[in-house]
């Protein structure tokens, strides 16, 4: 059963310096994302990944086509959609001088709810940082904290925009574990990424975008079977990241 249905979605922007010429950042994309899936959107910079996500989140107007989340039309009922989604944005700066605990209380208040902040922080492994300020967290901790913020309303769908960009391998694997845990509990997760390994090991299905268009959409295995060049006779075993992890261990670094 699809939870997100996207049909011919489009977003156009004025060409810089031109008065009446447009270009399409997202150019007629159709997607069906099933309940309980981890769905990845891949693509080079400027392919339209973030714009697609922002349209689904109600951050950006939809210029063409339609999108529904859990049967609710995004364009006509954005506030209803916001109630059931959790969002982690690329930039995640917060108010100065506010502890994680207080920020979670604030975010819960924005949904008109009360939350058990300790439980949420425990979920993302930051319980000991409850009184810390976001500015004093490491990159991985910051990403985990913004996921905690996105969870205050127990969303049905969680959107993650490049969640592992800039993280060290330990933090990256830790974040993947967190995403899998949330997914095991039934949450649908949509993420964008540049990281092929992330797409391959984490996502059940992936869509590849380029120039605002969908280039391919399938499970990672099927995509490899269909599109990857012939494998070499004696494939290399593992890759350099496995070597790095074997040498430096899986323990989290702060």
């Amino acid at each position: 059963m699809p939870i997100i249905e996207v049909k011919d979605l489009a977003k156009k922007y004025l060409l810089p310096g031109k008065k009446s010429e447009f270009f399409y950042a997202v150019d007629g994309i159709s997607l069906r994302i099933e309940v309980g899936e981890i769905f990845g959107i891949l693509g080079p910079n400027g392919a339209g990944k973030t714009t697609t996500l922002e349209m689904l989140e109600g951050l950006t107007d939809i210029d063409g086509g339609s999108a529904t989340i859990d049967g609710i039309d995004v364009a006509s009922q954005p506030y209803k959609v916001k109630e059931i989604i959790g969002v982690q944005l690329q930039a995640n700066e917060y108010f100065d001088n506010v502890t994680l605990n207080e920020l979670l209380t604030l975010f819960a208040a924005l949904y008109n709810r009360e939350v058990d902040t300790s439980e949420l922080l425990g979920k993302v492994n930051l319980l000991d940082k409850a009184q810390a300020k976001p500015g004093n967290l490491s990159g991985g901790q910051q990403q985990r904290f913004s996921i905690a913020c996105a969870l205050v309303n127990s969303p049905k769908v969680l959107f993650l925009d490049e969640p592992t960009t800039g993280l060290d391998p330990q933090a990256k694997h830790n974040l993947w574990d967190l995403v899998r845990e949330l997914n095991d509990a039934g949450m649908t997760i949509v993420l964008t990424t540049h990281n092929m390994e992330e797409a391959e090991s984490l996502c059940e299905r992936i869509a590849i975008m380029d120039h605002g268009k969908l280039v391919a959409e399938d499970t990672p295995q099927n995509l490899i079977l269909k599109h990857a060049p012939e494998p070499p006779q004696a494939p290399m075993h593992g890759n350099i990241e496995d070597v790095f992890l074997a040498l430096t261990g899986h323990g989290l670094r702060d």
Partner: protein
Amino acid sequence: MPTKLQLHLAKIFLKIFLRDRQSIFFSLFFPIIFMTVFAFANNGEVDPIKLGIVNNSSSEVASDFSQMLNDNPLFNVTGGEESNLRTELVDGDQTMVLILPENFDAQSDGAELQLLVDAAQVQQLGLIMPLLEQTLISIEREFRNIEPMFTLTIEDVKARSQRYLDFLLPGLMAFTLMQLSIAGSGFNIVEFRRKGILKRLFVTPIKPRDFITAIVLARMAIILIQLTVLIVFAVTILDVRIVGNFASFYLMIVLGTFIFLCLGFCLGSIAKTQQAVMAVGNIVIFPQIFLSGVFYPIESMPELVQPIANLLPLSFVSTAMREIANNGASLLEITPTLIGIAAWFVIAFMLATRLFVWKEVAN
């Protein structure tokens, strides 16, 4: 009335804003300095009149006379040659020069004294002439041994007249609340946008009206604390007098703060960068400093400007505050001003909720 959600949010924002103690404290610096300077520079005492005396007579009477004027605290006496003192008078170093003629002695009848004045200071003549005459009469009496028929004793009961500082305080409070409010909401919004916080808030279901109300309430709490500190300082340390009802005075502060916080929201929504909001903010703030009767009454301005000046939001607020603080006016007596405040209250809130569109503001 604010909803439960708005109050809850306001409480959280208040906690956040209160962390910024430095800026809360430093924004009080200017008004405190300003008031203190005025309190000491303008403490209600009249400066002594600078009087030059040219004594052309060598008689005892003449020197006694000079001495008596010298002892009078109203005069600051300098003796000297006529030509020197004339130059000083022209340069403004003396206010008046008194010339005692040669025949100024006990024997003469009708010696003529000459008073040279600076035309710019003529209005003080009315004050000085009786004093000079009074001094002359008492000298004459002394020499002729006449007992005065009446004596007048003046007792200083320290009745306070209104000082400029009393006039200034309500205006300065109104001006300060405008500055704090516009900075508090306008600059905050721009800062939140720069950090991407607005965008993050926008993906939650919070409505602009709830967000604006919460921020306005939280900011207002802080501004009320700041103004209370200033008022307590002015009343206790500088002995400024607020004649009217304190509750009415505070009601005006609350309404004024609301208006300018909302206008600050408008600025923050229009201007996209910190520089832009400063520039636009100054366009709003500067004319009101001069036109809204903060430092001197609107009635003293050119008649052409007055109708416009009277409609500015700060004019209504400062007028209401001044009427209450200086003249002890009741709310009923300032109804027209209150209508102006109410109108701006509605306009400011409508503009703020209209202009603060998440899609435009957050991106």
